[in-house]
Structure formats: structure tokens, C-alpha cells
């Protein structure tokens, strides 16, 4: 309470400073005059009385100052004058001020921008009610080395009713859908969930309503909810959209509601936000009867009951999985060790970009450190020049604490100006930076400069101010009175104490630069390796385009039903593509290399189980491969190498022996000792399906990404094993942009309801697949370059300063007969020792932290010898050069002139 009274009084003083000061003046005058009047009454003259009163009162200004101190506002006034003085100093050295504020603006700006991304993507909870209770559910078979296997309707029901840990559970189907009936057929992202999908997430529609129990249908519900984006794009934000019919994959659906702006489906989507949301009961057509072994569901999301920790829920699910394995031994072969795993939903969404973002944040933090060390060095040089001023102030009675405070105020002023400039930089460039960030980083639309980001920027600014302000401040407080005044008088400033401090700053700066350079080196080497990686095919002069045939809920609506229907389409498509002038060859694939176009893929790979005929069924070997459907000329278009056997022909069609071509990875994995040609495989578990014969082996193609190795692939003929996912690959010397209208025209001449999307060159696709790596490599590389530059400037500045401070000493030495080489060595040695220490320290830290970057590297070990040799060598060379320039200047000192000037 006393504290409160004091605070109130302090505030009163801050607010009414002038009035209270003048009142104090009046009060003192009253005192003096009253006393003088009493003295006059005792017989003194008016003048003598006033003089006497003043003497007995004591120093009026001192007492007033004590009054200010006793109400706790003296430091406030001092702060004002410190700031005033600081501003004057900054304005007196515009060069220094500009350099300091500019580098700070860059450092703090980059930090703020990267942090705003980290904040939105990693830190802020997902924009759902109690988002921390939302989990992704995985079904795993660790015994077979499988993660995220499919699950069945009875298993879903077990989660809902038997597990007792979920408030709600919904399966999720994500995928492409064809939206027709608007201007141009459009491929959209669709999501189908249960009828409680939206209530589980806690979403409120902006128009109409969302799915609820009253909408229940055994199959797919004939209704749809659309996104805000589609509502604006396709319906001009029509408020009466509810009740209108939307055609999705040929099915007419009634729109019942529009989602709020900013709603995003919390799951992986192929290329953007999901636009159409449906719901399904999973218990009627087109779904198969709900059998435990009929595993058709792909993804699941659940909301944990309140008060339950993740670990408790996981323990219960693990126990339930064990019970189920025991109760249904035929559905859960013991060797597979089927089990259930949950992960926070946020983690599953952003987990894969976390390492990249954290490395970037680390890099910008190092840059800020280097920037502040550089400024510290500049300030320290200035502080040495100000020793005399400090000593005089000390002699006049300033306390050392008071002087530290003044120096700190000056550097805080600088850091806050730099911080404000940094925030302005971040705000100004955030839009630009976000365009550079690869699109596979989720939640980018949530990135903004909010209070958390501003607080972070302020914190960073204050920290940098403290880092670069503390050293000179403490240094100035240690000024030894007599010697400083004497030394100052003589104009030399490089005392040993300051010198050592500056050395430490330079060494740390170099060490930080090494860490950044090693990180950049590893990322750039990864990038270079990937670019030189042979993708197994020739991407030049290949243009690709995509369409999606759609899967109507009602099979009767499907114009491309079954194998014959699809093959007819494929042949017509190929005929029209080949007829486009300039197209040499055309082929079809269900999956373009490096695009990860399958939303149901785990880690980008859609892998399926299969059987091998002459292999025991109980084999614990994990029989999985990615199945890709292609037309005969696919390998010719891509110029992939057929190692043995034959390619597909037009004759590999329905009714003939099903055939397959495998890649080397598959051959090595499943037929390590035998010849795979002529062997037979079968996808899925349906024993009535015919066996497929392996007729060829090709060299590995990087189908899943340049940085993904060893996934086994089995190629099958699109005429025998159709897919609704159709990508065309064309060998042509024409650019994609030129071909696009013709491709669109030809495809829509077959079926005007087909969308045509992502027409681009294969080279562009390969490039895009590396966007994320390129982004981080370029950014960290740029930061490392900046770090080297700053470190070089630091060393150069230090030595140049030393040379100028010691020119008298040099002249004396030279006058006494020291050769120029001795002088050169003197300074070069200093630079080399500092550089050596910094580099060694940086290498030690790098070596112990490089493995943190492991997940961002490909083909390069975290302790890559080349990087760990080149980086120190390069930095050392730069450091030697930066030392040589000032050292050479030292040898040019003319002893006569230097001595005379001194």
C-alpha cells in the first residue's frame, strides 16, 4: 500500500512536473521571506535579513535536487538529459549513426520477419476451439515397418465408443474434385468427413449451416458446404447461395452453408485450400459393408476428452489395440504388431517445416549477434576516445554507476531507433519475403505482425542494445582517473584493458560467422548435390499438364467407368496430344515425377501393399511399392533407361496378360538374388484378382522428389489398371505457356467438364520440388555472406584503429631501426591470432551443433569434411586480407611526420 502511495505520488510528479516545481519554488521563497521578516523584527536590516536567511537555508538548488530525489523523479530528469545528450552525440557522428542504424535495421528487420513466420506457423495455436485437444490418429504396423496404414469402419467405431478418450472422431478423405457449372471446369480440393467434422473443430458458418446429425446419410450426403474463397470466386459472394446446386465430380450437391473467411482444413492438401466439404455415413453405397478387415479409411482426426493428457490417451489407445489384436487374431496378424498412435494436430501440420524455420531463425539470430558485436566494437572505439570526458566527469563527482547508466542510455537509444527501423523494414518487406517462402509451408496466410511479434522485435532490440552497450559502458566506468586524464592528454587510447575487450568481441564475431558459414555451406552443398543429382530421366523439352476425371458417388454418372471406359479416354487423349503441332511424343502417367500429387501419401510417398506369387504369404518382409499407371511411351518421353525386358505396348490392354515394369530399387529389394523378369505380383489383398507379370526393369526414376531415394516403384499399364488421376507428359521444344491453350482445347474437346491445371515444363516442376531447400539455402547463404563481410569489417576496423593509435610507437620503432617487415608482422600477427582463435571457437561450436541440421541435409553428412575445410580456409583468407590492408598502412608511416604530429 505504501508502494501504491509512492507510485501515485511519482506519477503525479511525472504528470505535473512544471506545476509542482513552481510550487516548490513558491514554498522555498515563502520560507525565506518569513524567516527574513522574523529577522527584521529582531533588528536586522531588510537586506541583511535576506542574506542571513539564504545562508541558513543552505544551497537552494541542492535542496531542490534532494527533493526530486526523495520523490523518485531525479533519475527521470537525468534520463531526459542523457537522451538529449545521446541524440546530440548521434547527430554529431552521422557516419557512425547511419552504419549502426542501417545494420541494426537489417538485423532486427530480418529477425522480426522470420519470427513473424515462426510465430504464425509454429507457435500460435491452430485457429480452432481448444485446438490443443485436436489430434491426428495413425494406425501403424511397426512389425512390418509401416506407418499410417488404412483403417476400417469398425476400427473407427472402436475409437469413438470403446477407447473412451475421444469426445469425437472423424475420418477424412482429401482429394481432387471436379467443379463444373461455373465458367470454366475447375479442379478443387475437396474434403469429406463425418457429420460431426465441423462441430468437432468448433466452426461457425458465415452463411447457412454446417453438417449435423440431422444430415446423416449412409453413403455420401447430397449436400455440400463451401469455402469463403469458392463463394467469392464462383458465386460473387451471393448471400442467397444456400440452396443452390453445385456439381462435384458430376454429382449434384445442395449448398447448405458457407465457411467463415480464414477457415482452413487442418490437413494436407495437394495445392491449396480445400473448397468443397462433404460428409459421409460410411455404411451404405458406395461404401463396402463395414467389415473389420475392409480398410478403406485413410486419415482420422479426433478431439480428446477434456482433462486428458496426450500420454494418458496414448496409453489407453495402446492398451485397446492390444485387446483388439487379442480379440481378432485373423484381422491383426501378430507379426504386424498393429497399433494406434496419436499426435497433436498442429504437430502433424507443421512438424515437417519446423527444422527449416528454426534453422532460419537461428541464422538471423546469429546475424543480429554479429551486427551488435560490430556496433559494440565501434562504440568501444568511441568510448576510448571519450575516456578523457569520462575521467573529467568522474573527477567532478559523477558516480561510476551514473556513468554506466548514461552510456547504456546512449546505446539503448541507438538500439531502439535501430529496432524501430527494423520493424519498419519487416513490415515493409514481409509481403515480399512471404512470396519467396515456398508454398509448402502451411499457415502462411496467418502470418502477420501482431503484438507478439512487436514484443519480440522490442526484446531483440533491447538485447542487442545491451550486448553492444554493456562492454563500452563497463569499460568507461573502469577508467582510472589520473592515468586517463594523462593518457587522454597524450592522445593515445589503446590501453590493454580496452584492447582485450575489443579482441574478445572480434573473436566472438568471427566464431559466429563460422557457425553461419558452416550451416550455409552444408545447405548449399545439399542444394548443389541435388541439382547435380541424376533424376533418372531428362526433364528438358518436356511439358506436362494435369486433369482429373472425377469419381461420382453414383457409378452410373461416371462416363469413364471401368477399364474399357478409361482406356478409350486415354487413347483419345493421346491421339489428340500427339496431333498438336510441335509435340513429338505424348504419354500419360498417374503421378508426375517429384510432385507428390497424392494427398493420401505419407511423407510424400503413396505406397501400397502387394503380394509376390512364389513367396510365402507369412513372410515378414514388408511388401510395399508405389504403383504408377503409365501409357506405353512414358519412358520414351522422359528418356528413362530401360535396363532389361521390354516397355509397354498398345497391346498391353484389358483382357491380355497384366504386365508390370519395375525399377532397380524394387528389383534389389524384393528379388535380391533372383531374376525378377517373369515373376508375378498382385496389388491389394483380393485373391481373385489376376497376377501381373514383370516384363521389364528400368533405371530408378526420382518419382517422389530428388531428395527421396530407394522407394520401390512398380509401373503398370494404364490400359489395364486405370486411374482417375491423369497427367500428360509431352516431348516438345515448345514452351508450356504456348502449348497451354491447345492442350486445354484438346482435352475439353473430349469432355468440356474436365479441368486442365498446372501446365508447366518438367524443368519447372523439378525446380519447384526444391523450392523449400533453395529458399533456406539461399537465405542462410546470404546471411553467411553478410556475416563474413561484417567480420572482415570488424577485423579491418580494429587493426586500422590500432595502427592509428600506435603510429607514434611505430615511428619510434622505425626511427630506431625496425624494418618495415617487422612492423608488418606486428599487425598481421595480431589479425591472424584473432582470426585463428575465432575460427577454432566457431568450428568447435559448429562441430557440436551441425547434427541439429541433419534433417535438412541430403547426400551431405553434418560433419562434411569439405565444408569443414573450406569454411575456415575461406574465412582465414578473408581475415588475413582484412588485416593486411591496415598492417601495410602501418609500414607506410613516415616516422618524421608521425613524431612531429604526436
Amino acid at each position, binding site marked *: 500500500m505504501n508502494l501504491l502511495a*509512492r507510485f501515485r505520488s511519482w506519477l503525479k510528479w511525472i504528470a505535473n512536473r512544471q506545476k509542482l516545481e513552481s510550487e516548490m519554488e513558491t514554498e522555498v521563497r515563502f520560507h525565506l521571506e518569513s524567516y527574513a521578516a522574523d529577522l527584521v523584527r529582531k533588528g536586522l536590516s531588510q537586506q541583511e535579513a535576506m542574506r542571513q536567511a539564504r545562508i541558513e537555508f543552505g544551497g537552494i538548488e541542492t535542496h531542490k535536487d534532494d527533493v526530486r530525489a526523495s520523490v523518485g523523479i*531525479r533519475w527521470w530528469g537525468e534520463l531526459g538529459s542523457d537522451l538529449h545528450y545521446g541524440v546530440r552525440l548521434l547527430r554529431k557522428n552521422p557516419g557512425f549513426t547511419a552504419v549502426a542504424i542501417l545494420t541494426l535495421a537489417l538485423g532486427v528487420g530480418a529477425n522480426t520477419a522470420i519470427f513473424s513466420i515462426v510465430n504464425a506457423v509454429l507457435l500460435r495455436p491452430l485457429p480452432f476451439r481448444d485446438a490443443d485437444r485436436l489430434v491426428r490418429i495413425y494406425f501403424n504396423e511397426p512389425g512390418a515397418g509401416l506407418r499410417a496404414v488404412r483403417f476400417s469402419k469398425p476400427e473407427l467405431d472402436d475409437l469413438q465408443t470403446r477407447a473412451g478418450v475421444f469426445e469425437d472422431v472423424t475420418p477424412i478423405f482429401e482429394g481432387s474434385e471436379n467443379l463444373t457449372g461455373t465458367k470454366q471446369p475447375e479442379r478443387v480440393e475437396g474434403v469429406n468427413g463425418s457429420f460431426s467434422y465441423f462441430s468437432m473443430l468448433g466452426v461457425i458458418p458465415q452463411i447457412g449451416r454446417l453438417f449435423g446429425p440431422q444430415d446423416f446419410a449412409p453413403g455420401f450426403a447430397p449436400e455440400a458446404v463451401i469455402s469463403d474463397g469458392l463463394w467469392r470466386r464462383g458465386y460473387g459472394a451471393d448471400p442467397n447461395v444456400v440452396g443452390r446446386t453445385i456439381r462435384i465430380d458430376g454429382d449434384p450437391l445442395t449448398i447448405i452453408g458457407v465457411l467463415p473467411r480464414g477457415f482452413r482444413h487442418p490437413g494436407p492438401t495437394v495445392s491449396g485450400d480445400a473448397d468443397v466439404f462433404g460428409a459421409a455415413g460410411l455404411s451404405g453405397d458406395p461404401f463396402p459393408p463395414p467389415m473389420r478387415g475392409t480398410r478403406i479409411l485413410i486419415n482420422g482426426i479426433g478431439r480428446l476428452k477434456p482433462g486428458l493428457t496426450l500420454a494418458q490417451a496414448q496409453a489407453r489407445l495402446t492398451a485397446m489395440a492390444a485387446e483388439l489384436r487379442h480379440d481378432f487374431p485373423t484381422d491383426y496378424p501378430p507379426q504386424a504388431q498393429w497399433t494406434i498412435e496419436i499426435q497433436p494436430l498442429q504437430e502433424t501440420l507443421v512438424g515437417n517445416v519446423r527444422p527449416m524455420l528454426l534453422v532460419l531463425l537461428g541464422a538471423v539470430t546469429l546475424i543480429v549477434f554479429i551486427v551488435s558485436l560490430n556496433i559494440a566494437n565501434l562504440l568501444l572505439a568511441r568510448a576510448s576516445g571519450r575516456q578523457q570526458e569520462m575521467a573529467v566527469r568522474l573527477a567532478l563527482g559523477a558516480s561510476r554507476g551514473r556513468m554506466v547508466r548514461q552510456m547504456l542510455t546512449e546505446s539503448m537509444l541507438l538500439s531502439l531507433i535501430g529496432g524501430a527501423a527494423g520493424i519498419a523494414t519487416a513490415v515493409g518487406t514481409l509481403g515480399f519475403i512471404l512470396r519467396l517462402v515456398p508454398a509448402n509451408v502451411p499457415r502462411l496466410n496467418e502470418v502477420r505482425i501482431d503484438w507478439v511479434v512487436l514484443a519480440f522485435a522490442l526484446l531483440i532490440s533491447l538485447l542487442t542494445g545491451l550486448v553492444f552497450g554493456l562492454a563500452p559502458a563497463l569499460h568507461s566506468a573502469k577508467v582510472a582517473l589520473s592515468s586517463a586524464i594523462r593518457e587522454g592528454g597524450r592522445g593515445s587510447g589503446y590501453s590493454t584493458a580496452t584492447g582485450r575487450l575489443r579482441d574478445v568481441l572480434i573473436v566472438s564475431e568471427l566464431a559466429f560467422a563460422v557457425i553461419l558459414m558452416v550451416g550455409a555451406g552444408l545447405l548449399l552443398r545439399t542444394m548443389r548435390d541435388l541439382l547435380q543429382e541424376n533424376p533418372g530421366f531428362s526433364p528438358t523439352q518436356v511439358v506436362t499438364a494435369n486433369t482429373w476425371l472425377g469419381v461420382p458417388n453414383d457409378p452410373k454418372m461416371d462416363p469413364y467407368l471401368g477399364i474399357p471406359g478409361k482406356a478409350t479416354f486415354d487413347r483419345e487423349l493421346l491421339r489428340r496430344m500427339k496431333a498438336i503441332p510441335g509435340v513429338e511424343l505424348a504419354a500419360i502417367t498417374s503421378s508426375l515425377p517429384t510432385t507428390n500429387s497424392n494427398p493420401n501419401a505419407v511423407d510424400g510417398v503413396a505406397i501400397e501393399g502387394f503380394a509376390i506369387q512364389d513367396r510365402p504369404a507369412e513372410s515378414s518382409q514388408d511388401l510395399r511399392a508405389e504403383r504408377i499407371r503409365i501409357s506405353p511411351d512414358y519412358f520414351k518421353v522422359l528418356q528413362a533407361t530401360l535396363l532389361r525386358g521390354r516397355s509397354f505396348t498398345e497391346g498391353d490392354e484389358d483382357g491380355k496378360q497384366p504386365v508390370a515394369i519395375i525399377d532397380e530399387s524394387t528389383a534389389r529389394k524384393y528379388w535380391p538374388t533372383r531374376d525378377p523378369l517373369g515373376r508375378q505380383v498382385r496389388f491389394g489383398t483380393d485373391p481373385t484378382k489376376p497376377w501381373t507379370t514383370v516384363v521389364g526393369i528400368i533405371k530408378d526414376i526420382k518419382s517422389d522428389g530428388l531428395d527421396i531415394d530407394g522407394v520401390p516403384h512398380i509401373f503398370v499399364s494404364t490400359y489395364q489398371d486405370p486411374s482417375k488421376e491423369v497427367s500428360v507428359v509431352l516431348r516438345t521444344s515448345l514452351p508450356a505457356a504456348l502449348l497451354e491453350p491447345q492442350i486445354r482445347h484438346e482435352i475439353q474437346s473430349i469432355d468440356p467438364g474436365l479441368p486442365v491445371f498446372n501446365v508447366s515444363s518438367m524443368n519447372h516442376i523439378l525446380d519447384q520440388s526444391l523450392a523449400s531447400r533453395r529458399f533456406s539455402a539461399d537465405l542462410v547463404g546470404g546471411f553467411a555472406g553478410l556475416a563474413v563481410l561484417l567480420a572482415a569489417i570488424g577485423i579491418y576496423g580494429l587493426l586500422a584503429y590500432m595502427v592509428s593509435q600506435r603510429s607514434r610507437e611505430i615511428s619510434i620503432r622505425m626511427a630506431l631501426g625496425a624494418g618495415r617487415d617487422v612492423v608488418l608482422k606486428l599487425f598481421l600477427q595480431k589479425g591472424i591470432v584473432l582470426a585463428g582463435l575465432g575460427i577454432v571457437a566457431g568450428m568447435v561450436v559448429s562441430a557440436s551443433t551441425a547434427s541439429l541440421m541433419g534433417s535438412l541435409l541430403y547426400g551431405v553428412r553434418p560433419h562434411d569434411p569439405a565444408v569443414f575445410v573450406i569454411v575456415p580456409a575461406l574465412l582465414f583468407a578473408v581475415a588475413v586480407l582484412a588485416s593486411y590492408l591496415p598492417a601495410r598502412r602501418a609500414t607506410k608511416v613516415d616516422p618524421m611526420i608521425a613524431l612531429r604530429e604526436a
Partner: protein
Amino acid sequence: MGKQIDLLQGTLDMLILKAVSLGPLHGYGVLLRIQQISGEQLEIQQGSLYPALYRLEHQGWIASEWGESDNNRKAKFYSLTAAGRRQLHSETEKWNRMASLIASILRTTSEQV
């Protein structure tokens, strides 16, 4: 802003509280009252009264108000607050204990040791 509270400063604060506890006073009045009740025995540097007055007000032990002095001039009058009254009470007690303790120490003769 020296925080050290030497005896004199502590004493001055207590004397001021005592003086204004007898009725509202302006700064000069406080000086006169202390001199009067001490029988002119205490020598106080006049100016140092004010930092003490402002400190006591800052701590909420006395309150100030502008009013008219005996000779009809504008003057700032200080009066004791409730918190100040409690503070004066506890200070007085502390002082008395201390005084009697020191007195008894000083009375000690060689036989008593």
C-alpha cells in the same frame, strides 16, 4: 538517491511527524515548532527540511494543502495522515526502546560487568 538512513535523517523525519501531529503547519512553521518545543536546543539546517517533507509526503505519511498563512500569504500546509499517525506511533516506540537501552548501557559501571 542515497538510501542510507543515518540517525539524523531518521530523527528529523520523526520530529517533523511529531510537529505536524500537533496541527497543520507550513514548512517554516514546522521549523519554528521544532525549535520551540526543543527549547531552541536543536540546530536544523533549514533547507534540509524540504527533502524530508517531500519524502514523507511521497510515502503518504503527511498530506499537503495550499492555504493562507498568519500574514495572509499563500503557503503550503502539511498535516498528518492516518498512515503517518501509525508511523509516528511506531517510530516513537522504537525510539523510546532504543533510548532506554542506550541509557542503561551508558549507566553501566565497572562493578556491574
